[in-house]
């Protein structure tokens, strides 16, 4: 009987339920009324300059405000904020505001490299040796001093760790000859190595050699004028901070450094809730200042970066004013641009270069006439108007718009469906008869690529070529490219690709068109092109470079291995950025990946 009495729910459960209901109702009422003060956006913060800030005037003439907060909606959270580990856009967008390199572009001026942590530099007569004299008196945000040893440590640390970030540090540099143990000897509060390490640090046969506490020499494998374009990504880290948190282990990343970036830059990372938001605050000890070139003392006191994967949420946030800046996907930019209080700035033609590799090893695309038929069957204007809202710039060739070697007279292939049909017939596939179905891989994380794929599918169907569309993320497509033989049917016949690199010609021409290079997704190979590109990347004579790149462009263009889409206007690497109309001072620089907050201010 006792057991039966205990069957069912006791009074206590009812009491608990009632209490929970009361708490929830109470909390909802309370939170609902408090909400307006819980979230601070730019419109709610003071922009009145304090007496202190009035004494400091920015280069733009705008007074430094005491309490300006910028709210930004990015799409994804970084995986790591250690430059030796990370190569993502999301990571560089934050790191670039915290850490600095020896040199950088003069804001939006891609033709001028200016010293940042360097005071000045000189290039040796061999074209390989660059000697940097560094600024003195700079400290990292934690107070540790910056000097030439930090530069040496940063480069070799990345090489020893062998993570993906090592790529940027190692372009045209032979970073061998230093071990993890030697790096870990650089562990002092002054960031100065012990005497025992000096022969290694100062070894001038190495790619990086310290010539003095504020003088460092970098020696490339061969003459390489574009080295500065890669150095902008090579951020200088604080050896002392890293040595206090695990140091350097060969072949391993440092978990602490992944989450705790310490730099010399204008901002410091205050909070990072992974997957949710990051807060950057002005570095109170920042060495830069008004009138000292790029990366001035920030006018913003705080930047709140939300990681919002949902396009709809980002749109709503920028339209409602909950965000000051938001990343917007290509298919939606036309709808968002021009909304009340929202601006898509005229950044001009970006360095984002889009194209479609055609797998010329796969039957029947290995027949030149078939590839030629394909490129002439695709309506570029339709892609421009219907997918990119007229924001495409019709560039083609091995070097995109605006860089040395760009050929302004070379455009995407003309839309000539009749010619395409004839070529297909000549290749033995009249009206597509006998043609196997091609596979087009579009990137599901770039929604515009599905629209491009649909245009291509319809256009090729017009001449009798059937195309099957398959969607994978861009990363997965890269993985598929490298893990399936290009002659196999599993390899993408056609795919959409874009690259946004540092504005240097070899940053596009070499990886995309050189044999076995990392961005050469359809494994295009032509020894003549390789030779031209190698010569071009090694010469300081811009006239000669342009001519060499132009010759390479002509060969590639006439091979029909690539359908060139062109450069995209106003575009950042992955999306467009729209701003509330009270946000000012922003600029576009492709090497920055996202936004340089040091120049931005609110009114």
């Amino acid at each position, binding site marked *: 009987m006792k057991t039966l009495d205990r069957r*069912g*729910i006791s009074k206590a459960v009812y009491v608990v339920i009632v209490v929970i*209901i009361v708490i929830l109702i109470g909390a909802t009422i*309370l939170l609902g009324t408090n*909400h307006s003060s*819980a979230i601070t956006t730019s419109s709610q913060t003071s922009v009145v300059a304090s007496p202190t800030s009035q004494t400091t005037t920015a280069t733009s003439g705008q007074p430094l405000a005491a309490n300006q907060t910028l709210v930004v909606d990015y799409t994804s959270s970084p995986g790591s904020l250690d430059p030796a580990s990370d190569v993502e856009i999301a990571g560089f967008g934050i790191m670039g505001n915290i850490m600095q390199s020896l040199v950088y572009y003069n804001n939006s001026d891609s033709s001028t490299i200016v010293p940042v942590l360097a005071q000045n530099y000189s290039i040796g007569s061999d074209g390989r040796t660059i000697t940097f004299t560094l600024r003195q008196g700079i400290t990292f945000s934690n107070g540790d001093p910056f000097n030439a040893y930090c530069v040496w440590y940063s480069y070799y640390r990345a090489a020893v760790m062998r993570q993906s970030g090592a*790529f940027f540090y190692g372009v045209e540099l032979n970073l061998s000859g230093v071990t993890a143990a030697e790096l870990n000897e650089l562990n002092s509060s002054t960031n100065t190595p012990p005497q025992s390490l000096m022969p290694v640090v100062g070894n001038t046969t190495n790619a990086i050699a310290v010539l003095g506490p504020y003088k460092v020499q970098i020696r490339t494998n061969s003459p390489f004028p574009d080295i500065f374009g890669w150095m902008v990504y090579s951020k200088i880290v604080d050896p002392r901070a890293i040595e206090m948190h695990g140091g350097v282990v060969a072949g391993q990343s440092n978990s602490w450094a992944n989450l705790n970036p310490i730099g010399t830059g204008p901002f410091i990372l205050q909070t990072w809730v992974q*997957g949710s938001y990051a807060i950057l605050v002005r570095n109170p000890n920042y060495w830069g200042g008004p009138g000292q070139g790029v990366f001035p003392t920030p006018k913003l006191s705080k930047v709140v970066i939300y990681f919002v994967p949902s396009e709809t949420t980002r749109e709503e946030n920028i339209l409602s004013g909950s965000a000051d800046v938001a990343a917007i996907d290509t298919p939606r930019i036309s709808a968002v641009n021009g909304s009340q209080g929202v601006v898509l700035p005229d950044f001009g033609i970006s360095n984002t270069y889009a194209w479609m590799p055609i797998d010329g090893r796969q039957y029947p695309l290995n027949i030149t006439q078939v590839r030629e038929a394909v490129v002439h069957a695709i309506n570029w204007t339709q892609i421009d108007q219907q997918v990119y809202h007229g924001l495409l710039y019709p560039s083609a060739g091995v070097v995109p718009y605006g860089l040395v070697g760009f050929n302004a007279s070379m455009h995407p292939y003309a839309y000539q469906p009749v010619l395409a049909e004839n070529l297909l017939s000549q290749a033995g596939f009249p009206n597509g008869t006998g043609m196997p179905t091609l596979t087009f891989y579009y990137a599901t994380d770039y929604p515009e690529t599905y629209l491009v794929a649909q245009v291509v599918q319809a256009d090729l169907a017009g001449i009798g070529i059937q195309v099957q569309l398959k969607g994978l993320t861009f*990363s997965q497509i890269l993985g598929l490219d490298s893990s399936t033989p290009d002659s196999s049917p599993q390899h993408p016949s056609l795919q959409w690709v874009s690259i946004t690199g540092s504005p240097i010609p070899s940053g596009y021409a070499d990886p995309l068109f050189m044999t076995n290079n*990392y961005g050469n997704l359809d494994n295009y190979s032509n020894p003549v092109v390789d030779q031209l590109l190698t010569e071009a990347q090694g010469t300081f004579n811009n006239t000669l470079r342009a001519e060499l790149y132009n010759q390479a462009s002509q060969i590639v263009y006439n091979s029909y291995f690539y359908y060139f889409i062109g450069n995209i206007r106003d575009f950042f690497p992955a999306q467009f950025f729209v701003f509330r109309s009270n946000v000012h001072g922003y600029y576009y620089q492709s090497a920055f990946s996202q936004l340089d907050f040091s120049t931005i201010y609110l009114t």
Partner: protein
Amino acid sequence: MIGVTFITFIVAHAIVPNPVKAWIGLYSNPQIIQAYTQRYHLDDPLWLQYIYYMEGLFTGNWGISPTTGRPVLSEIADYFPATFELVVFSIILSFIIGVPLGAVAALRNKTKTDLSIKSFYLLGVSSPPFLVALLLQFAFAYYFNLFPSVGEISPNIPPPKPITGMMVIDSLLAGDWPAFISTLDHLVLPTLALTILIFGLFTRLTRSAMLDVLNKDYVRTAKAKGLNQYYVDVRHALRTALIPSITILAVAVGQLLGGVVVIEYVFGWPGIGSYTVEAITTSNFPDIVGVTTIFAIGVVVSNMVADILYAVLDPRIRI
């Protein structure tokens, strides 16, 4: 469990056999590719890779995430509590809403009230999660401006020191009231969205159980004895009818752990769903297998809890 890890491991490799480029992106050189290949045994046959992985799993080494460079287990420990918190609050709210509605529907069987409640929960259950989340967000975050649209806590408030990883609980334990209010504030909309989607489960179960109980002899006897109608409905009928709903609580936790992805996506909730999506998009098999293993453990444990609860609540099935 071994089956789950095996299937997940195979499937994770099916789309992209060699995921190195998916992990490190376009920018790479042969040395880096070689380093990753060696680190993750990618040159070895798949079965051998699996053995390496399982060896690590059993020794507590779940591997290093190739995209973040951090230990997988540590990352899961960072992301999982946010999801667990969301799921638990949603389950509680669903129970609170769903059970009374189910009881009322049973007591007003085949009336307009019953039909209305049925329509209400069917609407919730059959609604696309994306739509529900966006509608709530639009109405309460943008139109009425009552709740924040994204995140787990306001950036203006320092997050509480992690104890359980669940910010509401941690802020409560720390006595950090501003953080507590802020985390609750952020929890409302995603919880409500998830609740709308699942409360029908409890309503339907309670209704059918209640209808069954109301026809039992002992209920009729109670009524015949002249007991108060409310007393009979609540103490005799609902009390017994609650048993299936209580036990389904635990099962629902297991199911929901894997089903909150869309809600997390829309509300920018930093949970395991977002983490899993990120892992899948980069063919990051150490993360994928790690998360799947955690989910599998979650389902197994929640089913075990359900069995125990059932035994506690219904003495007839005790051994």
